[in-house]
């Protein structure tokens, strides 16, 4: 395949550079809204659904990017839309399970949830998996961004007499620096607001290319008739070809990918945590999946579809051997004029930048909450309940952003061996998602799921997955639904099904056998040599993990597959036994408010008192600043009655201008009522958080 170079003009470059600078300035402007880590990571939990929905569009589109879907659209037609229209199946689990759990439990990161639900060791393992997942995602983002911009670049250029060859990796390092800067200073509020602009831009750019393309080939009728029927079907072939098929996409994207994106992508979770309440989060998720994703399917795949139609109409214009990952840029150059092409490329860069920035913000949040803080507690530099040193935490967050930006670029080297970004992303989903997905799913929806089940899934499940990677024909082949075997990248998609099955199997069997494990552990503790026996089990488990790693990565067949698998299963039992022995777990205490079965309790904890579920109306009021240190807001008796509120209930007040999307708003608690109707008493604390404007009216809403 040919790598295209040097397309576009000087004007396009000027548009692109101006756009990048504008985004940098726009993003860093919002640094003033970062009063503390809560603002930096969660934007103060204040935004309305439409702002978050648009932000999710920008994040979602860029991760399932223009580049890879246009490539698949060019090669296979409308079936490139499959990944955008298979996300509804897990909506009930999300809207009424995971979303309220993460919001009401007031967790700051997914690993923190695992510590509260299971144990500190569970948090440790999940932190490792989460960071790998996020860094991998950042790597995919950078790879896509590099491939998108590459066709614009010359093969080489000269500065001060030095000839510099333009390479993909060189380009990725440069874009990584630009992205790192604005997320390092801007924080979550910057990400959300730049996403709003970027989301709109990329929707416009993608739809513009599609409609210009349809017009170019002579209108809708010509476009439709130019494409063969097999191209118009919205599904790929059931089980072939190996690089793109329906059954593989169902398991890799519809199941692993959807759950991965909705449930364990910390970047997306932080978006939902930035909504003002759970109801707004539900609206954002629903609107996004029902309407924005199908539109996004056209936005990202449309370039490939029209490129195909043009190549059928005029094969000289778009050669069949063009690199599929460059096809969007190539067709955009044909369809747009000078300057407009620069705008389209800027939109792609924007889309990719918004995803990467979201993920970098998420990795920083995990680093601060799940690595830095526990290490400082362990080193006895702070105590668990000490207040957060905000200046230090912000500094650590910014340095973490820089470090993970670098790691993300390094991850690109691993993905660059795949022929298309689509396949690289599929491999990533199929490999890293299943253990975390099972951990989150069973943790949130199955009360009986124990730390032994979780840790065995993470260690044992991953080991069995690695064996599948080493012996794909024997282990994944029987589950592959007849998809062809590609010896270089075997079962890129169907590996997801095998991985899900082994992780689920380990989780379910170990959890169901938990009583037996506990019985044997109790029995063992009476044995005077119990410590020595446990050390032997730890050594055995570590030895098996090492053996499996040697077999997989060293490609050495030390034992026959059956024996290796059997020993690995024994290792799973051993890990379950070790976890049951060492980890203290109180199922009553550690499931309360943290599973779908006790959401009501989680609500009460969130509020800090009994719920008041009487329905009231919102109140529009003027504000009066009073001198007080208390975090309470006081309304008149009449306004309290209108809102059906009681002192102690939670309240959200915001500027009445809806288009601000909640930017000027804050949360507080109702105080004792007064007698001045239409007036709310607020303090400097609320003014500082909400940045309210003098003489502007406020809208108050009782929460929950």
């Amino acid at each position: 395949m040919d790598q295209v170079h040097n397309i576009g003009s000087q004007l396009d470059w000027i548009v692109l550079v101006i756009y990048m600078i504008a985004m940098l300035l726009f993003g860093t402007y919002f640094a003033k809204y970062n009063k503390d880590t809560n603002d930096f990571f969660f934007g103060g939990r204040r935004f309305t659904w439409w702002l978050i929905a648009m932000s999710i569009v920008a994040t979602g589109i860029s991760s399932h990017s223009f580049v890879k879907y246009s490539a698949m659209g060019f090669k296979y037609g409308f079936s490139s839309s499959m990944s955008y229209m298979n996300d509804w199946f897990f909506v009930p689990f999300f809207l009424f399970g995971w979303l309220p759990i993460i919001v009401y439990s007031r967790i700051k990161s997914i690993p923190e949830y695992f510590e509260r639900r299971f144990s500190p060791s569970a948090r440790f393992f999940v932190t490792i998996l989460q960071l790998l997942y996020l860094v991998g995602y950042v790597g995919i983002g950078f790879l896509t961004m590099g491939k998108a911009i590459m066709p614009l670049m010359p093969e080489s250029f000269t500065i001060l007499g030095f000839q510099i060859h333009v390479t993909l990796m060189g380009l990725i390092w440069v874009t990584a620096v630009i992205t790192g800067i604005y997320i390092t200073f801007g924080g979550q509020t910057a990400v959300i607001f730049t996403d709003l602009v970027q989301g709109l831009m990329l929707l416009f750019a993608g739809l513009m290319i599609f409609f210009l393309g349809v017009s170019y080939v002579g209108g809708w009728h010509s476009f439709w008739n130019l494409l063969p029927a097999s191209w118009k079907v919205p599904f790929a072939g059931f089980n072939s070809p190996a690089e793109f098929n329906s059954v593989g996409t169902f398991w890799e994207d519809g199941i692993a990918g959807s759950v991965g994106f909705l449930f364990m992508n910390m970047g997306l979770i932080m978006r939902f945590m930035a909504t003002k309440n759970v109801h707004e989060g539900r609206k954002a998720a629903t609107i996004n999946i029902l309407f924005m994703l199908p539109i996004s399917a056209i936005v990202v795949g449309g370039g490939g579809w029209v490129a195909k139609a043009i190549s059928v109409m005029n094969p000289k214009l778009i050669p069949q051997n063009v690199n599929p990952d460059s096809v969007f840029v190539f067709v955009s150059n044909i369809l747009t004029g000078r300057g407009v092409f620069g705008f389209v490329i800027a939109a792609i860069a924007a889309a990719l930048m918004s995803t990467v920035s979201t993920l970098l913000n998420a990795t920083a949040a995990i680093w601060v909450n799940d690595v830095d803080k526990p290490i400082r507690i362990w080193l006895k530099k702070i105590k668990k309940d000490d207040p957060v040193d905000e200046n230090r935490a912000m500094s650590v967050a910014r340095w973490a952003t820089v470090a993970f930006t670098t790691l993300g670029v390094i991850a690109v080297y691993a993905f660059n061996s795949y022929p298309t970004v689509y396949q690289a992303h599929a491999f990533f989903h199929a490999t890293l998602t299943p253990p975390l997905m099972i951990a989150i799913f069973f943790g949130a929806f199955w009360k009986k799921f124990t730390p032994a089940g979780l840790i065995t899934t993470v260690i044992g499940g991953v080991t069995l997955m690695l064996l599948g990677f080493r012996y794909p024909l024997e282990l994944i082949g029987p589950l592959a639904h007849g998809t062809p075997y590609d010896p270089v990248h075997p079962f890129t998609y169907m590996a997801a099904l095998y991985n899900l099955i082994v992780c689920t199997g380990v989780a379910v069997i170990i959890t169901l056998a938990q009583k037996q494990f506990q019985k044997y552990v109790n029995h063992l503790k009476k044995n005077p040599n119990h410590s020595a026996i446990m050390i032997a089990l730890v050594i055995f488990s570590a030895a098996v993990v090492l053996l499996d790693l040697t077999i997989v990565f060293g490609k050495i067949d030390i034992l026959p597959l059956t024996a290796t698998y059997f020993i690995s299963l024994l290792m799973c039992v051993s890990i379950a036994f070790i976890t049951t022995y060492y980890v203290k777990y109180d199922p009553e205490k550690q499931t309360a408010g943290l599973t779908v079965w006790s959401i009501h309790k989680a609500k009460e904890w969130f509020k800090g008192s009994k719920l008041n579920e009487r329905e009231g109306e919102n109140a529009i009021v003027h504000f009066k600043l009073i001198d007080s240190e208390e975090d309470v807001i006081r309304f008149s008796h009449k306004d309290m009655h209108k809102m059906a509120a009681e002192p102690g209930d939670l309240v959200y007040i915001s500027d009445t201008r809806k288009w601000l999307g909640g930017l000027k708003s804050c949360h507080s608690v109702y105080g004792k009522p007064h007698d001045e109707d239409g007036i709310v008493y607020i303090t400097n604390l609320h003014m500082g958080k909400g940045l309210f404007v003098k003489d502007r009216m406020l809208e108050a809403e009782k929460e929950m």
Partner: protein
Amino acid sequence: MPSFFNSWLPFLYLYIGGGIFFLAGLLLIRKAKSIDMRLKRDRFWWKVMIFGFFYFVVFHGILIIAALYW
């Protein structure tokens, strides 16, 4: 013209396979009382979730028919 294997079979696989997960989710949130059908707002969300599933079924169905016969 694409065969059943490349048109309706992926459709059926997606909505039967995915439908099992979807139905399990609906039943679970009802059983766990995470969705409270006494509340007007929750009843609204229940309808939205069911609507969403059939919205995509119909959407995909129309696209296949258009590809095969139009």
